[in-house]
Structures are given as structure tokens and as C-alpha cells.
């Protein structure tokens, strides 16, 4: 159940804000938000948890305050996310944590994927640019983001939203879709959605579910093997 899970949203920007709205709609009750950015005027039209009075304040703090006003147990972590720090951060989460990767940094997406696979945490990851979005849910045993894309693209070949533009509703739809995937996994639909790359072709209004099989030589193959699985300790009353 999404209400029982610890949801951790990395990035509270264009993807993170609608993802947080979606998690609240889905019934999430415990949410941690990690972001070091501060609210800017240029964010306001698409990062809808913030208003003009929040300009200059840390996004994580403002978003957490908004969630608490709506009955969610929300925690803000004002931290700069770097690939090197993801492994220890993911390892420290509850076993049933659901991580929503909502940043715009390719290297961070791959680092989060690798850490979630290694520590057997559920991950939902997304990106959006122009009129297009990508979303994938990764659970223990499913195909991972690296099964789909083997490596991050070189920086010069990845246009940012600033360079290529993004329609607010495109990033909003993608962020909301990430929350929906998290809820679908938490509510027992992982078999149907996990490991597939959802391509949201929002110019034509089409959502395609692509692939879905683990790549045999992917670095996640070791984590998928039964011998790697951490034993669960049963609680006996």
C-alpha cells in the first residue's frame, strides 16, 4: 500500500512538484523530499507547489510545508544530490521505500538506478523535454533503467529543458505519471508496469510501453540472482 510506504522524492522541480501532488492524491502518508534548490520566479508557472511568497526559500522546505498542511507526514532534506552520494542515501532507506527520481541530471538517474538495484529498493524514474516524457518503474527482479539505456548520453548530446524547452503540461503529465507508477507498484501491479519504458509522446497524445525484458549482461543481473537476495528477518511475536 502506498500509504504504508516511505516515498522519497529526489528533486522538487518540474517533475517533482506534480509527482508530489500525485503521491498525495494516491494516498501517500510519509514523504521525504530531497533538493537543495531555492524557488525562483521563473519556476512558478510549472512548479505549482510554490507561489511568489516562496521565492528564495528552499524548495524542499516549501514543498514539505505544503504537504504537511494537507495531512502528509513530510520531511525536507536540503541537500545537493550527487551521484557519489546516492548509494549511502539509498542504503539507509526503509526496505519498502519507493524512490522517485525527478532530477534533470542523467548521471544521477543512472547512479540512483544502480543504487536501488543494489539495495533492492523500488525506483520510479522519469525525464521530460519538449513534448516528450519517459518513465520507468524498477522493482527487485525487473528490468532496470540500465537494461533500457546502457549508459548516460554524453552531455553535449543531451539538450536541457533550458536549451530545448519543455511545455509545463508535458513535464507535469510526466511527473504525475511517475506518482501513478509508484502507486501502481505499491498497490500490487508491479508485474504489469515494472521494467517497461513508458514513452509519453505528448505531441500526439500517445503513451507507448516499450520493451520490458531484463538485459542478460546488464550490471543488474547479479542483483537479480537469488543468491544475492538479502534474507528477510521474520518478526515473531
Amino acid at each position, binding site marked *: 500500500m502506498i500509504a504504508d510506504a516511505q516515498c522519497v522524492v529526489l*528533486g522538487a*522541480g*518540474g*517533475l*517533482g512538484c506534480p509527482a508530489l501532488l500525485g503521491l498525495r492524491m494516491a494516498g501517500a502518508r510519509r514523504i521525504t523530499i530531497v533538493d537543495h534548490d531555492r524557488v525562483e520566479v521563473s*519556476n512558478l508557472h510549472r512548479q505549482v507547489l510554490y507561489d511568489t511568497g516562496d521565492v528564495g526559500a528552499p524548495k524542499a522546505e516549501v514543498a514539505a510545508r505544503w504537504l504537511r498542511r494537507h495531512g502528509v507526514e513530510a520531511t525536507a532534506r536540503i541537500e545537493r544530490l550527487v551521484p557519489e552520494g546516492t548509494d549511502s542515501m539509498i542504503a539507509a532507506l526503509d526496505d519498502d521505500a519507493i524512490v522517485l527520481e*525527478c*532530477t*534533470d*541530471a*542523467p548521471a544521477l*538517474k543512472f547512479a540512483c538506478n544502480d543504487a536501488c538495484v543494489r539495495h533492492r529498493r523500488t525506483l520510479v524514474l*522519469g*525525464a*521530460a*523535454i*519538449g*513534448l*516528450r516524457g*519517459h518513465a520507468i518503474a524498477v522493482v527487485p527482479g525487473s528490468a532496470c533503467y540500465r537494461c*533500457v*539505456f*546502457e*549508459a*548516460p*548520453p554524453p552531455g553535449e*548530446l*543531451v*539538450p*536541457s*529543458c*533550458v536549451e*530545448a524547452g*519543455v511545455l509545463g503540461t508535458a*513535464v507535469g503529465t*510526466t*511527473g504525475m505519471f511517475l506518482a501513478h507508477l509508484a502507486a501502481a507498484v505499491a498497490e500490487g501491479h508491479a508485474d504489469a508496469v515494472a521494467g517497461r*519504458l513508458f*514513452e509519453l*509522446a505528448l*505531441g*500526439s497524445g500517445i503513451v*507507448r*510501453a*516499450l*520493451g520490458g*525484458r531484463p*538485459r542478460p549482461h546488464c550490471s543488474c543481473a547479479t542483483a537479480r540472482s537469488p543468491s544475492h537476495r538479502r534474507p528477510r528477518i521474520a518478526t515473531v511475536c
Partner: protein
Amino acid sequence: MATVRIPTPLRKYTQGKEEVSVTGSSVRELLANLESAHPGIKERICDEAGAVRRFVNVYVADEDIRFLDNLDTAVKDGDEVSIVPAIAGGR
């Protein structure tokens, strides 16, 4: 003839078209014909050795060609071929 879906960053090679029709009985042949019709596009999809770049996926009928026969994957008349590069926006 197959329908090839072109991602936004590569549409500058297809005069802005989101889809183009290309002949070819395999992905390899289809990419060669795509390059003939739209010069410059193939090097954005394949590396110097001719392999599909690690951050680009090619799907035939929604199946990743790496799980089929890679560049030798058969393409039939009417198939939809999607070229899907990794993207990274979200601010």
C-alpha cells in the same frame, strides 16, 4: 515499407517530420536507407563501428532490437520502428 518514428532531437534531419516511411528488410538496411534519404541522421543513432549507441534504443513493433537480432532484426512492411534516445529534462 516501415514507418520510422523520429525523436524530437533528430527531426532537424527529417524536415521536422515525426514519422517517415523507409524501405528495408532489416534494421541495418532500414538505417542505411534512412541515411540516404536524410543525410547525417545515422551517426546520431549509430557509433563509428556501426553499432547502435548505448544511450539510444531501436524498437521494432515495441520490442527492443537488442533482444531480437540487433541490427539484423527483420522489418516487415507496415512495421513501426521507434528510435528512442535517453532524455534528461525535468526542471
